[in-house]
């Protein structure tokens, strides 16, 4: 209790409130802009925070990170432009809601769901951080492999009508994920000798191309005569029915996000995809998904924000980074003269509890920042499309160029925009492809790592209990998919056709 008071005291000093606000506002801004992500922003701001005291600097940097998770959904919903993995899921139903004139509701759902999830995850972080971190360490390569298999199978098993198309898209995504230098042998794969491809394809240029640019091409090809994206924007407020529909998904999304966020590497990525799949699986009306289901926005957004908070657990309790942003924060710790590691909680209570308390304050700020902005964002959609689409292209291009200050990224969005358009014409959807792209490298790396450690003995996946449990669940999913009697339940998880 003393600790929590200490944290609140620290977080509520005028300086820390200010840096928290700056961090959150900046984070929202970079989240909204496609391309410029939290990693680049934090890297740029790192030198400035030299002169802050350690707590303030980390509060600001953390604010940028979870603020970006918040802002990332805005363009995904409004313009079908996901700037990061999790927002790609939000785009599926969020963009459809926007097209139906319900952009305000979609944005409000995302904001409120994120706030709730952020609050819960902060409590989880405060109460359970050390034991959860220890539990996450039980996840070795074999467990990660099985987790990824489960994630992939879950999405395949849920597909019905376009099962083959969804499967093909996942496979294509897996293959695209293989591009680049092989970690084990160093061999370049599918790079055609181009050095830019050695590091692999970039998620942002893939997503911006496949979703944003392809959508523009589709709109233009189908002859957009309407003056704007949406003929009328209905009320921005969430109705009582909306609240009733979004509450259970928010709760489930928060739970799943909080747990998966702790796992380094794979967790954050899986959280939003998994929660979306689960919502669709248990829904009584799965056919609404992909056509503007509010649950399809509520669940992944909550999961994503919860995971963003709990991904601090390995960093704060063990000094181990869960993702590139956390690795960057380790650098910030070191520059501030704090050794990140198991001792931070005891040696630096002001930092640990202050940061946690500031996360809740920051979430509150984000909701207050974002809710009034919704009206403004929605107005964007009333801009005539002939003005809007060049602006989208311009911002996407600038954003992607900023990824590595390399024109290659610009060509990449053009290429993936065309590919995405062709795929849409064939009735194939980009979401399964993105899932495969993100999970493919994790699948391969962890499989090879597990096999190397076991010296080629594949039984390792079955003899480790956590791994076995996940494979069993995956097998059950598969059976459900194959059994025709349960066929009714099967539906296209990612179908977005009109």
């Amino acid at each position, binding site marked *: 209790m003393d600790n929590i008071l200490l944290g609140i005291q620290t977080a509520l000093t005028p300086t820390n409130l200010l840096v928290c606000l700056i961090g959150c506002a900046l984070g929202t801004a970079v989240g909204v802009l496609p391309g410029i992500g939290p990693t680049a922003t934090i*890297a740029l701001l790192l030198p400035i925070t030299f002169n802050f005291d350690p707590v303030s600097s980390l509060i600001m940097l953390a604010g940028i990170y979870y603020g970006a998770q918040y802002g990332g959904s805005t363009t995904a919903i409004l313009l079908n432009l996901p700037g990061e993995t999790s927002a790609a899921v939000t785009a599926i139903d969020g963009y459809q809601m926007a097209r139906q004139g319900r952009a305000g509701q979609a944005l409000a759902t995302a904001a409120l769901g994120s706030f709730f999830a952020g609050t819960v995850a902060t409590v989880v972080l405060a109460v359970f951080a050390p034991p959860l971190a220890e539990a996450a360490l039980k996840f070795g390569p074999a467990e990660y492999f099985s987790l990824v298999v489960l994630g992939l199978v879950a999405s395949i098993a849920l597909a019905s009508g376009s099962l083959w198309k969804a499967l093909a898209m996942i496979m294509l995504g897996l293959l695209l994920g293989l591009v680049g230098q092989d970690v084990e042998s160093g061999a370049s794969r599918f790079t055609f000798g181009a050095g830019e491809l050695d590091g692999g394809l970039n998620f942002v240029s893939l997503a911006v191309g496949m979703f944003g640019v392809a959508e523009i091409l589709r709109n233009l090809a189908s002859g957009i005569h309407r003056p704007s994206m949406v003929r009328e924007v209905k009320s921005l407020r969430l109705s009582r029915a909306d609240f009733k529909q979004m509450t259970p998904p928010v709760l489930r999304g928060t739970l799943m996000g909080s747990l998966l966020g702790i796992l380094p590497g794979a967790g954050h990525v899986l959280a939003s995809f998994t929660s979306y799949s689960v919502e669709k699986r248990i829904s009584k009306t799965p056919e609404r998904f992909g056509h503007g289901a509010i649950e399809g926005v509520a669940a992944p957004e909550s999961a994503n924000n919860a995971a963003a908070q709990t991904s601090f657990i390995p960093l704060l309790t063990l000094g181990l980074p869960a993702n590139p942003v956390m690795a960057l924060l380790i650098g910030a710790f070191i520059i501030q003269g704090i050794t990140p*590691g198991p001792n931070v909680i005891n040696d630096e209570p002001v930092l640990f509890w202050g940061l946690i308390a500031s996360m809740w304050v920051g979430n509150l700020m984000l909701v207050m920042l974002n809710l009034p902005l919704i009206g403004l964002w929605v107005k964007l959609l009333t801009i005539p499309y002939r003005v809007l689409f060049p602006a989208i292209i311009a911002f996407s291009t600038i954003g992607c160029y900023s990824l590595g200050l390399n024109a290659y990224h610009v060509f990449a969005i053009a290429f993936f925009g065309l590919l995405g358009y062709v795929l849409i014409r064939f009735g194939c959807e980009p979401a399964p492809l993105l899932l495969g792209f993100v999970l493919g490298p994790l699948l391969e790396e962890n499989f090879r790592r597990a096999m190397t450690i076991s010296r080629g003995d594949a039984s390792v996946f079955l003899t480790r209990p956590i791994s076995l449990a996940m494979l069993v669940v995956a097998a059950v999913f598969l059976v459900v998919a194959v059994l025709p009697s349960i066929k009714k339940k099967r539906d296209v998880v990612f179908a977005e056709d009109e």
Partner: protein
Amino acid sequence: MALRPPPSRRPARFLALATVSALALAACSSGGSAGSNSAAGSNYPTGTITMVVPFSAGGPTDTVARLVAEPMSKTLGQQIIVQNVEGAGGTLGAGEVAKAKNDGYKILMHHIGMSTAPALYSNLAFKPLESFQTIGLVTEVPMTIISKKDLAPANFKELVEYVKANKEKVTYANAGIGSASQLCGLLIEKALGVDLTEVPYKGTGPAMTDLVGGQVDFMCDQTTNTTAQIKPGKVKAYAVTTATRVKSLPDIPTTTEEGMPDLKVGVWHGLYAPAGTSEAVVKKLTDALAAALKDPKVIEKMADLGTAPEAADQINPAAHTAKLKAQLDLWTPVIKAAGVKAA
């Protein structure tokens, strides 16, 4: 350029045009003056300097770069921006600086990877000794040989016996092709005469996570990454790979003490400019670097990382070039013999 229609009728457009042309003019003039001044070197630096780090932000090399960039920019009176150009084991960023203008406005912080790149990469866009002008050595980060906390051996000698006896079973984690942990692994293999089962990771973070979680047996990595886990006993430390003991880890013996003087490796960092940079500019950079490495704040923060600034007589182009040559001679045959290839 004639501005039509008359500005009075279209004030907004005129203003916009005027602003753009003014900005363009300003950009041209400042760019031009920076270029001409640097040729003489007398006024250098008159603009922002970019320090390229060929690895990701937040990593150990990035941390070192940011530590020295701040005091250096104070000495030079101009801002130094650290830019991360990551990819292909640091060769992309190094290649970018190699082909940059040699006016001292784009410099490179690189580590031991400069001396291993020619052996690892067949189509290198630069030659370490020819494409760069050395500025000075910065720091040499010691490495530590560590294991998961419940690995049986109690000391380095036992570890050597254990690895030799269980060479079929023991797993060694590394942070990927060309990483310091992989290089150290090569030296361990050579010193012990064994062929390790290497488990590669994408970077040091995930490798350390799996070592702390007990998924892999042992590894050798920089004190930057390992000290935080060694102190609370989350991993077991057997030896440091330096000639003398590391101040922050006084209880851990050196490989030399343990009778393996050849098992010596440190992640040395150096500052580079493109080849052909004028002597005056190099001298200013060398002096600024030397001053930065005397800064008590830098010394203190480096100590937190388990390292220390290079000795004063190493912070100059001659010592740096000598080190680079010696390291190229050491690593090229070791890497070729192990058959490691990055591309």
